[in-house]
């Protein structure tokens, strides 16, 4: 479904609300996806399809809300959903729900953003895509035959349109593509897996990979590392000076910090006090900055919120001080922060929640690092740079944590955990490898421990934000590596010390 059709549909549903008291937001989404997966040399799945539909969020004039959705994109259903949504809103009023009239304050916006992709969805045929993915998969298998390999490719196009009772009508297209290699390697009876990806807006990702082999090299290096991890010893648990890669840094910024400044979390956030953002709080050393905002061409790109407001780029931490949060129209005021258009939803079928887009953690104190083609060459480069600048802390292991396997945080208590693919002691010239162990602690302590960055910014660490049971594209990064001091509130798990 094209933007014009979806705008027409939203307008026709909004027309059904004209005679009704209250306020309405209509969200429609048309999503197309082509995906394929190869497993050890053959196609395991090629799938086409999508998920389209629309939702009506209704507010009584007092501000009680109700929500109704359908996956049938039909103007005839508009009336039914409008009636369902306002009916539920009225029921909601009767149970003493918390009223929210903030949507009446939202600015009127009428925008239509053109599709930013270089190769539009369908321009490269499925047959050609299959051929290219097969070439990439085969090349990887030939290059690292001892691994068991799966290669996946997805390309997605989401057309969104939001209309509101005040006449707002905003539509845009989000194109997204990702190529992934997942490998399983075994050594000495133990197995480890590794997952690498390359993302962008469209099939250009495949064309670039065919030319420069960047992901293939990364996959083989990571598989060799995973193999070494199979037989690697466990570290004694404890507190160490750390070097974390930008994938982990994105995880730290997203899970351990970004969620804690979202406006709907202020009542239970370690960065909130009496429901308000603790603006002015020093959360890191001077020179540490955290920024969130959409980047064109990025996996988590979204120019407008799912409530039809402009998505702003926000400096959350400036020079180590908490200065702003991620506010959506419904909770920003209560949370003591401006509305930044932070509302995002997985689809038309979910209520938008304040959440991040691309979050970057950057420090003013950056040591230069030459990016190497191969992983272990880069690790050697990290060690040499640290030695050269007197940054290797003596008398202890200096541990480089590689690869981000995900994490979790309790925003109320500030507890976080992350997992990596493996660990290297860069204080030891032989660069010994250790098994991954959990990186955990208190988020404010982790931020306070950041003392510098290594290399230029890399912001293409992608993931999926699972807040509120939804699955929304997220991304971010930092310098290629971040340096962290020893902190008694940040530890690595492992063998009992």
């Amino acid at each position, binding site marked *: *479904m094209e933007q014009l059709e979806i705008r027409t549909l939203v307008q026709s549903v909004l027309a059904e609300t004209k005679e009704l008291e209250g306020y309405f937001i209509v969200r429609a989404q048309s999503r197309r996806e082509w995906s394929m997966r190869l*497993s050890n040399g053959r196609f395991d799945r090629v799938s086409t399809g999508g*998920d389209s*539909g629309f939702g009506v969020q209704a507010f009584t004039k007092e501000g009680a809300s109700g929500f109704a959705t359908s996956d*049938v994109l039909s103007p005839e259903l508009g009336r039914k959903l409008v009636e369902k949504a306002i009916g539920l809103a009225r029921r*909601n009023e009767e149970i003493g*729900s918390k009223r929210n009239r903030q949507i009446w304050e939202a600015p009127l916006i009428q925008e239509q953003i053109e599709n930013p992709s270089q190769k539009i969805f369908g321009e490269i045929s499925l047959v050609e895509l299959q051929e290219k993915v097969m070439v990439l998969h085969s090349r990887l298998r030939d290059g690292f035959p001892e691994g068991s390999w799966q290669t996946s490719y997805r390309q997605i196009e989401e057309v969104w349109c939001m209309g509101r009772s005040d006449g707002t009508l905003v539509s845009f297209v989000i194109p997204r593509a990702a190529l992934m290699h997942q490998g399983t390697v075994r050594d000495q009876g133990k197995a*480890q897996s590794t997952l690498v990806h390359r993302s962008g807006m469209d099939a250009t990702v495949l064309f670039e990979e065919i030319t420069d082999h960047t992901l293939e090299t990364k996959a083989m290096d990571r598989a060799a590392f995973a193999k070494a991890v199979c037989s690697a010893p466990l570290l004694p648990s404890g507190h160490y000076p750390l070097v974390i890669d930008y994938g982990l840094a994105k995880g730290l910024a997203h899970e351990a910090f970004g969620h804690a400044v979202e406006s709907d979390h202020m009542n239970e956030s370690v960065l909130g006090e009496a429901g308000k953002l603790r603006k002015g709080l020093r959360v890191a050393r001077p020179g540490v900055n955290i920024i969130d905002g959409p980047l064109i061409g990025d996996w988590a790109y979204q120019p407008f919120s799912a409530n039809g407001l402009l998505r702003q780029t926000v400096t959350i931490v400036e020079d180590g001080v908490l200065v702003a949060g991620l506010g959506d129209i419904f909770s920003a005021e209560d949370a003591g922060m401006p509305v930044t258009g932070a509302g995002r939803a997985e689809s038309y079928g979910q209520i938008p929640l304040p959440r991040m887009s691309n979050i970057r953690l950057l420090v003013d104190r950056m040591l230069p690092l030459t990016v190497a083609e191969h992983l272990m060459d880069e690790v050697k480069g990290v060690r040499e740079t640290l030695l050269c600048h007197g940054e290797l802390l003596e008398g202890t292991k200096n541990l480089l944590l590689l690869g981000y396997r*995900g994490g979790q945080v309790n925003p*109320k208590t500030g507890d976080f955990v992350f997992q990596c693919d493996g660990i290297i002691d860069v204080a030891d010239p032989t660069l010994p490898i250790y098994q991954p162990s959990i990186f955990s602690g208190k988020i404010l302590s982790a931020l306070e421990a950041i003392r510098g960055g290594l290399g230029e910014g890399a912001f293409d660490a992608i993931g999926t934000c699972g807040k509120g049971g939804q699955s929304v594209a997220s991304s971010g990064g930092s310098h290629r590596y971040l340096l962290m001091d020893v902190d008694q509130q940040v530890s690595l798990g492992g063998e009992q010390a």
Partner: protein
Amino acid sequence: MKLVAQLEDLLYQSQQAPKKEELRLSAWRILVHESEAVSLGIKDNSPGSVYTPPSYRQGESGEVFLVWADGTCSQALVQLPFQNEREFWSNELEQWRQASYEDPDAAHIPTPEALPLVAVEDRAIQQIIAGQDEVLFDQVKHWLTEKPSNSKMQGSIQAAWGYRHVRTSTGLAVTYQQSQFVTWFSFDSLVGGGFAKRRLIRPEEREDLWTQTVNHYEEMKKEAPSVGPQTQVILSPSMTEEMLGQFILPNFSGDRVLEGQGAFSKESFLEQKLVFHPHVSLIIDPLQPLELGSYLVTPEGVPAQRTMLVREGLLQTPYLRVKEAIRWGAKPTALPQGMGGLYLKHQYEVRWEEALQEVEDGVLVLSVLGLHTQEAVSGSYSLSAPHSLRILKGKIVGRTDVKLTGNFLADLAASTTRMAHSNLNDHPYLILKTGVQTL
């Protein structure tokens, strides 16, 4: 016209009299869900907040699997067309053809067999969807009245009801009704309880779940002594379920076993290798009445049946879809529905109340952070579990924060591992000797 009917027409015609010969199908199958759901939530003690309003959802979507005359396959997700049915489906068919790929093992549609009788629908849930939804609103009111003072409560109730249609070119045409009722709540985002079945929660279950959760919350307010090297670790049923989902389910996927990406090799299954303790068995059982993992027929048209994955510690089979069954040389098995339908059993399970009395020095783990980040193939875990409950001399005495280190596959093989059950849960409490230290 219903989606399933449109698809049947389209695929039947493409099999019998295609518009172009290259669009001729030799076989196909269709799965369509028609569903309606209502839900209501609580956020920060506020019922029906702007983020958790009463909601209604309707859907009609599904998937098709096609085998073309040249033996190649296609699969696609499908929804009702926006407009111009005829042109839409004609274009879709062309695109599906373009997306075809070779997978001879997948190109098999089972012939219909007798279906078991399994209860998967609670008519009371249909009434809620039809408008008698006071039960949802009353429940929320009750929660907020009864919740511990000063606690911040979050919660949700959802009721869903609908039709499931399975059609195949070999003659299977099944349509049945199914329902779902899912509810959960938590206090201060630290302690929670939940229920998920194909039937409404019974009053006594609701009461027991509430009492247990409130008690845990109150016990969490007291500080307890730290754990020591001899402390037993007890995983709560919801933790056991999560550990099974992270470490066991992926390693029993036929696909992963066949591709060498699981913890166990195909040979290990064929040799019926001992991998768990002989008292431990693992079963997929979709025949249990009104359980979330129960069904009549798989999306591929295979009737529901009970499958032993591990019998008395010995590997039996991974779970196999049609394609994997052909590659394995066996019949397709039962399939888990997420974690639904998977049951871990111990020959000498006791009631939780009894087991608790015997714990001299233990810690009850209700939740952990970061489980999904752990390596499934190795089974190893390194987890932090803040807000666990300390047990001393058979009694819960307060809160403690711990870190766990171990291997879940080894835990299930250990002679020291015991299990206990409670009426509130399908999964057992797991009583383990594993690495535990103060966080």
